[in-house]
């Protein structure tokens, strides 16, 4: 396929990036930021025009890797992603998973292939919709519903964590329930689970009224460790939030906090189990009654396997064994590798992840091998610094960073790509099959080039700053809608059918990461990370064509990967105040982002200010947000 190397990786058909920032909230869904990924230039051009006619802001991209880089670079640059299924450099479903994990955006798949298997694959991988080519403009007019739905779901999720806002959150999603569009299958389950959750929430509210007013819980490293210890003590099967809460014995922590964290943790483990299967060839215990079609995917990277594992009801004992392995106990299963991708996606904080991994290191050297060159012994300070550098990456777009940042970024980039090849070493795509380009060989990169990449990139996207704002506007609507069947209720995990589990897993993975979800959708979609497929990168009023324009793309992407995560978190927190579309949404969205932003702030206080100012956000205070 024509790689279309151009001078600028993004092409914009609109004049100004900044114009997006002027998006009027009341225009929603106009101004929705859509990223279209299709290797067919004809289709891409047609879709671009159609989406523009729908008054969306369009970014086009003919390569999945470039698309992922764009998404990572511009956390708030996209509300929803539309991707072709068959692409030469990366399977569309893979992109779907990555977007779901990293950015937690709604992703719409499209293809000329309308066979049931492919459509089913889209569903199980977490696509929020599947369009058959040739696409008609009517099909595109309502894609905004996916954004809203996802936001809705995230808000609902947040509400679980912050009981103080539960009632409000309950109210909001309910008002949108009627406005939900088609997707009846999802909707039905979603509504049911929502009701269940609502009831549970309300019951909990009454019990925990005294704790309602406490500030949002930040799952610090120590807290997470306590949580993990408690879970392990109880055993993954018996680890219910109430008991975990008791074991943890943390004053001020509510059952809801634990419940939501447990849910994310389970998804994280599930993903790990998929990876471990992949790496250790232990497919059978997890595959269970998997679809033959999925089994045939075993040659794909571990991400697919995880999806597969998730879709096949992972028995609790399997999860438990995974966990046990992770903790260094002797099990028949191999130790769980810690794909940084998952770590990044599922849990917002690197430290606990690494610790998790470090613990595993002791149990098996395999894990270490998996992370070529990855500094497994990174301490929390290093992680924090990486975090900072990731954040500083954001600044890179407009100002070249200091050498320290560059080295940190490179370090971070190292982390990311390292694991990818591991996890995705079976990917058929030529480019490591993944967005993360150069994996292990990314040992040292000259700082200047790094800076140069960013600088040049920043030139290309002078309107970066503008992204978040428009995104916000687009996002606010999206935030409101709860996603499909993704119930924040952790109990649902076991109850959902395969496809839901799949989607959910991915969704939650993305949401808990919180980081990668730059795009406005991510903001609201923090909760539903896995589905990140629908990462929407709103193209600020511009139609951007993302083409691999730079030979350094791999480096850049690496840099961008990490920062993207951080940025998304920050951008989320920052965007809230700016969000305009629906004020009610602000409240809800904020909940999720508060958690993440607070966590981020904890870790990199020094970086907060520059980031905020760079993106033109007034230093908004978390306290000021009505929750």
């Amino acid at each position: 396929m024509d790689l279309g190397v151009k001078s600028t990786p993004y092409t914009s058909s609109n004049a100004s990036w900044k114009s997006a920032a002027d998006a009027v909230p009341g225009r929603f869904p106009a101004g929705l930021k859509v990223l279209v990924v299709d290797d067919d230039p004809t289709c891409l051009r047609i879709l671009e025009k159609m989406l523009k006619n729908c008054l969306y802001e369009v970014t086009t991209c003919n390569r999945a890797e470039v698309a992922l880089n764009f998404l990572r670079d511009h956390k708030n640059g996209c509300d929803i992603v539309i991707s072709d299924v068959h692409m030469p450099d990366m399977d569309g479903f893979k992109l779907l998973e990555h977007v779901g994990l990293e950015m937690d955006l709604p992703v719409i798949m499209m293809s000329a292939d309308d066979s049931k298997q492919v459509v089913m694959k889209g569903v199980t991988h977490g696509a929020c919709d599947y369009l058959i080519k040739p696409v008609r403009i009517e099909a595109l007019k309502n894609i905004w519903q996916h954004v809203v739905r996802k936001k809705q779901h995230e808000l609902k999720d947040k509400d679980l964590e912050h009981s103080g806002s539960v009632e409000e959150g309950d109210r909001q999603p309910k008002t949108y329930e009627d406005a939900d569009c088609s997707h009846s299958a999802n909707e039905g389950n979603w509504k049911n689970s929502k009701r269940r959750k609502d009831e549970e929430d309300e019951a909990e509210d009454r019990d925990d009224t005294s704790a309602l007013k406490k500030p949002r819980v930040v799952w610090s490293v120590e807290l997470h460790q306590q949580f993990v210890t408690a879970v392990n003590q109880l055993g993954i099967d018996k680890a219910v939030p109430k008991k975990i809460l008791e074991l943890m014995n943390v004053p001020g922590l509510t059952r809801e906090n634990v419940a939501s964290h447990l849910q994310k943790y389970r998804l994280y483990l599930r993903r790990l189990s998929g990876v471990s299967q992949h790496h250790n060839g232990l497919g059978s215990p997890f595959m269970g009654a998997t679809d033959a079609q999925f089994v045939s995917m075993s040659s794909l990277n571990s991400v697919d396997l995880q999806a597969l594992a998730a879709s096949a009801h992972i028995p609790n004992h399997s999860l438990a064994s995974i966990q046990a392995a992770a903790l260094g106990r002797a099990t028949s299963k191999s130790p769980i590798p810690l794909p940084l991708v998952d770590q990044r996606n599922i849990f917002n904080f690197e430290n606990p992840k690494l610790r998790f991994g470090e613990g595993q290191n002791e149990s098996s050297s395999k894990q270490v091998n998996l992370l070529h060159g990855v500094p497994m012994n990174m301490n929390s300070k290093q992680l924090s610094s990486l975090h900072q550098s990731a954040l500083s990456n954001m600044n890179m777009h407009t100002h070249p960073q200091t050498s320290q940042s560059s080295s940190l970024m490179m370090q971070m980039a190292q982390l990311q790509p390292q694991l990818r090849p591991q996890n995705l070493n079976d990917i058929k795509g030529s480019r490591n099959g993944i967005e993360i380009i150069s994996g292990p060989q990314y040992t040292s990169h000259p700082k200047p080039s790094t800076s140069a990449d960013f600088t040049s990139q920043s030139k290309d996207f002078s309107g970066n700053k503008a992204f978040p704002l428009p995104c916000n506007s687009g996002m606010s609507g999206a935030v409101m809608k709860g996603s499909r069947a993704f119930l924040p209720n952790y109990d649902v995990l076991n109850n959902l059918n395969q496809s839901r589990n799949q989607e959910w897993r991915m969704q939650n993975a993305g949401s808990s990461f919180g980081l990668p979800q730059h795009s406005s959708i991510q903001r609201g979609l923090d909760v539903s990370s896995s589905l990140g497929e629908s990462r929407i990168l709103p193209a600020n009023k511009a139609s951007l064509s993302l083409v691999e324009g730079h030979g350094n793309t791999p480096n850049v992407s690496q840099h961008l990967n990490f920062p993207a995560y951080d940025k998304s978190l920050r951008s989320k927190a920052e965007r809230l105040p700016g969000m305009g579309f629906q004020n009610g949404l602000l409240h809800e969205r904020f909940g999720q982002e508060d958690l993440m932003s607070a966590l981020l702030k904890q870790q990199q206080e020094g970086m907060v200010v520059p980031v905020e100012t760079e993106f033109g956000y007034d230093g908004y205070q978390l306290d000021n947000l009505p929750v």
Partner: protein
Amino acid sequence: MEGNQLPCQASYMRNALFNQGYLDDQFLQLEDLQDEANPHFVEEVVKLFYSDSARLIRNIELTLENTPSDFEKLDNIMHQYKGSSSSIGAKKVKKECTQFQEYCEVENIDGCLRTFQEVKQEHASLKRKLENYFQLVREAR
């Protein structure tokens, strides 16, 4: 310019293309996208299609020559070409593509070879007709 507002000759040709099954509804979608800001949108897209699809056609040809038993690859390339041609509303071309893919499915190389000739023919035929059509449209402006 709206399709139904074309001057006589261009309009006549346009109708013929639809009536004779060369174009389908998707072409109408393209026409609907054409507006003042993009007054030649349809022609641009068609040109884009023909310049891009040439390489797909070439790829299929090479595959049929070098590794004719690689039906999966043939199907993949044809799938791309079919998606692309269907996006401009190339009805007859699309039909031949489907036929080709069916032969790939049953691994009938002769069927594939024969059908591919049809694909190329329809591809070239539509290209000529559309070039003529756009010429008429241009002259009428």
